[in-house]
């Protein structure tokens, strides 16, 4: 019984169905969760391909961090703000689907035509086992051939972090923690709960006086729950 084939078909089917569900589901949370399912299956595929480390990385990084963040944001966005499921420009979307199908056929054809592969490397399963498993082998390759890339990727991650901070954290919150004197301001509107305590905005910006703060926001402007001043919600 070719267990691997069976396992492959099962996992493959689940992941494809999950992916389809993710695209088609009206409720974003459901699509989020379906994506989690899909990614877990993909981790399974990685294991079948012998890349255990990648499977674990897939689980920890993708499902563990990125999708959690995604769900995080999904939950923060009030459901009624979400756009209607139905398509705004049918023609455009129709063409999109058509293109997708054509591309699928093309890639299928490409796979079928069996292009020749490059020269066989020396990382046969036997060598990997000799080195003590996929993790050790991959570790050694990473540290030797791809050392530069490894360093550069660390830079990419750092920029990612800084980017996230700059974009997501509104100043005001920064101040309340008290430790953070000033943050990188992108000119977000700066709320002011009590004028005395808070220091003026960045040098050139005039502090928003309390009067402004109380100005009722026009109804049309719908606001994000979390971005609002948490004081509205927690009594701590």
């Amino acid at each position, binding site marked *: 019984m070719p267990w691997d084939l069976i396992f492959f078909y099962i996992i493959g089917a689940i992941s494809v169905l999950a992916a389809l569900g993710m695209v088609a589901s009206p409720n974003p949370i459901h699509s989020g969760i379906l994506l989690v399912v899909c990614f877990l299956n993909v981790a399974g595929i990685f294991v079948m391909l012998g890349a255990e480390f990648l499977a674990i990385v897939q689980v920890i990084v993708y499902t563990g961090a990125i999708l959690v963040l995604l769900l995080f944001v999904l939950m923060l966005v009030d459901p009624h703000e979400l756009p209607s499921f139905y398509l705004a420009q049918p023609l*455009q979307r129709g063409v999109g689907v058509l*293109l997708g199908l*054509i591309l699928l056929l*093309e890639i299928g054809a490409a796979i079928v035509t069996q*292009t020749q592969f490059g020269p066989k490397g020396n990382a046969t399963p036997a060598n990997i086992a000799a080195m003590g498993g996929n993790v050790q082998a991959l570790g050694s390759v990473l540290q030797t051939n791809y050392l530069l890339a490894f360093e550069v990727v660390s830079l990419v991650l750092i920029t990612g972090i800084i980017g996230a901070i700059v974009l997501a954290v509104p100043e005001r919150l920064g101040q309340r923690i008290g430790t953070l004197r000033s943050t990188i301001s992108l000119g977000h509107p700066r709320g002011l709960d009590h004028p005395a305590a808070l220091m003026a905005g960045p040098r050139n910006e005039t502090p928003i006086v309390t009067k402004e703060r109380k100005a009722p926001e026009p109804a049309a402007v719908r606001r994000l729950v979390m971005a609002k001043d948490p004081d509205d919600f927690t009594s701590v």
Partner: protein
Amino acid sequence: MEHYLFLIPLLPLVAFVINLLLGRWVVKHASAYIAQVAMFGSWVVSVLVFFDIRGSSDKVLEQHLFTWIPSGTFNVPVTLHVDQLASIMLLVVTTVSTLVFVYSKGYMAHDGGFYRFFAYLPLFAFSMLMLVLANNLLLLYVFWEAVGLCSYLLIGFWFRRRSANEAAVKAFVVNRVGDVGFGLGIMLTFWTFGTVDFYGPDGIFAKAANHAALGVSGGTMTAIALLLFLGACGKSAQFPLHVWLPDAMEGPTPVSALIHAATMVTAGVYMVARTHPIYLQSESALVVVALIGAFTSFLAATIALVQYDLKKVIAYSTISQLGYMVFALGTGAWVAAIFHLMTHAFFKGLLFLGAGSVMHGMHDELDMRKMGGLRKFMPITFWTFLIASFANAGLIPFAGFWSKDEAIVGAWASASSVGKLAAVVGLITAFLTALYMFRCVFMTFFKAPRFNPEAIHPHESGAWMAVPLVILAVPAALIGFIGFPPENGPFQHFLEPVFEQAPAQTTHANEQASLYTIQEPATTRTAIAAAQAATATETHETHVSTATTVTFGIISTIIAVSGIFVAYLTYITGTISATAIGARFAPLYQLFVNKWYLDEIYHNYITMPFYNFAMFLWRIVDVKIIDGTVNGVAALIGAISQRMRTVQTGLLANYALGIALGMVIIVGIYLAGFSTLFR
């Protein structure tokens, strides 16, 4: 004497430089004296040179100054070369110049640009002298144009007059047309003979003589001759390019006298004479020259007949007389042409100076219809003018008769096919010349004055002007005798070495006494008389029998007298009414009055087409086509980029769609091109 040759042109040049640079502030009125002294010095040297050359039969003086253009084989030295022909020309130029300088002192006395005038005149003299002294074709060309420059400056002297300046420009441009022909001729000679020098074993003349041996075709010789002749026409105001001379009368009269009568206009004749070996090689060239000469003389004579402007009449008469010289050259009568040139220089100069003093007296009034009866007011001017008229008409004792007659005889007896025709035309023109000369004399000096005496008080001009008139009158009357007896007078013998290959003259006379009238002290005049008396009788066979010369002499006298008589009848007694004849031959009369419509033809069929073509080139080709394309390309790029802008819709979906489309295409290409799918 070679070492002092450079003095002749140098003196006027020095006078020019002094007058030009210092004239306005330092020299002022003294500039006249400087010019006159310089000219006289140059005249003295010329006379010395003449006597030196006359001493030995084929003596030639040459002085090399410096090399002008050493460009590979085209090596142009600046050397002065004097032979018999050149010495005669030197004498003529310097004599007339000196006299005109003296005359101008009086004439231009109270003119604003006095110093400027006396700067330009020596410059002209310098260029003319250098032109005569030049030993190679290019140097001749250089001073050919320099003379054109001076005529431009002098014609346009009163620059505030628009007509004067237009005339100057016209003169220069027409001359320039001729000069272009001349230049092209030089180039052709250079490339055929490899050198531009006249003389010497490998000079142009030597090579021209045996041009067949050198493999130079007859056609080239004709081409060279004709091109050079085009230059001559431009300068000596022959038929196609003569239009500038009448307009040149805008300049001050001394200028007309010096330049447009005596010297510059004769440069063309001199050049043809100088390069006669080339002309001898091509029969057709000579025919052309003769025809042009004849036609021009007839044409000018007809127009002169109907002119009312005193100076214009004399100008046209100059063109006519030049016509004589040219057809004399054309028919091979080289010596006759030069002889006529010399005599013409004197009596035509006198005529102009006379006209100048008339103008002076009549407050710059030139229209003959407003003159009359000036005999009583300016006796000297009258008598000198009369002598000059007789000479010009060609009456027996006067200079004009001998030279003109010899030209006609030479033409008649010459081997050239058109000789006979030229001679006949010459005779007709002689009649017309006599007619219009005496029409002009009778209208200005006889009958009742046709101006109101209160406004204009004609008076005899001052000493400065009168003395030159008298001095010039002498050669105008007597110079003819140096060519007596016709064909083998002392003048002919003197010029023999220059023209010895000339077929017409094969005689070989021995030296004879000098034959020139020398101005100034009376003693010299007596020397001339002695020379004439002692005309040597020598045996020389001349192909022209004395009988023909005598008959022609009688014919031309008859013609001259009849011309004068007809003029007497119309303008003095009034038996023939000029207006009636004019009316009867109206179309002919209109033709002559409008100067054969030549000015209009040139303007409408040459100047304007060029101008319109230029305007077309600028407006259409430059602005529209070339600039148009350049700016057009810029505008096109702007338009394209404007259209491209609309592709950016801003919708994220569109961009994603674009990317997807890109993917599809790329994979498609891969499949089609590189994969084994379709193979």
